[in-house]
């Protein structure tokens, strides 16, 4: 295995795009390892189901850290992304406010008359990935794993 990709960015929404881009590219390194082709550094193609799942989950976790963990004081978000043969691991650390993940309620049944307008993020992340763990800190540590 090669070394992980490490990224550290200020924990604000202005740096969301750059973090998502790095994660999308790392996912692609795993999903397209068979058809590994050079790509355009200006675009990322997130159409493969593996890439889709990883990026969907990561966007929610990043949003939550920037919005909730860093709602009062701000700090950095540190990522260690390890593309493996058949899996991708994303470790995330922030020094914001910890929370209790067990208090997050499951998403109620979705019907035409009961559509949620919030509370979908953690649900999306856990449903899209094989493993999601959170260890309150400081630093708070997320570990996301997706198998291909």
């Amino acid at each position, binding site marked *: 295995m090669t070394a992980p990709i490490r990224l550290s960015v200020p924990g604000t*929404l202005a740096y*969301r*795009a750059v973090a*998502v881009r790095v994660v999308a590219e790392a996912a692609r390194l795993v999903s397209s390892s068979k058809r590994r082709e050079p790509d355009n550094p200006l675009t990322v193609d*997130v*159409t493969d*189901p593996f890439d*889709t*799942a990883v*990026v*969907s989950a990561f*966007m*929610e976790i990043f*949003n939550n850290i920037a*919005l909730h963990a860093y709602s009062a004081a701000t700090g950095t978000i540190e990522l260690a992304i390890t593309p493996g043969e058949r899996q991708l691991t994303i470790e995330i650390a922030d020094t914001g406010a910890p929370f209790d993940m067990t208090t997050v309620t499951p*998403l109620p*049944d*979705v*019907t*035409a008359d009961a*559509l*949620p*307008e*919030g509370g*979908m*993020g953690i*649900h*999306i992340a856990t*449903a*899209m990935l094989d493993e999601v763990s959170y260890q309150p800190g400081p630093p708070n540590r997320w570990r996301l794993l997706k198998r291909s």
Partner: protein
Amino acid sequence: MLAPYEVTRSPHLTLAVRGSLDINTAPALAEEVDRIMANRPPAITVDLGALELIDSSGVAALVKLYKAIRAAGGTITFVNTRDQPLAIFKLLKMDRVFGI
């Protein structure tokens, strides 16, 4: 930068959303939804053919539009949903509600 959406009024009222509808871009769409609803349109088509990425904030913006149109007695149709946004709507079981 392009706005994350475009509204066309003829022949039908269509809202085309493009690029990434997310926590950064959804507020602009929400404002557009307010402008759209000011006319109480009887029907709207939401074209997601150029939408590449959506997050839960983007979903929330579309849910708001859906609720507003229905509350006003109108109809809303989603077309051309693909890739990551399609996966999200399926995961949230909104694909059937939205007729995707």
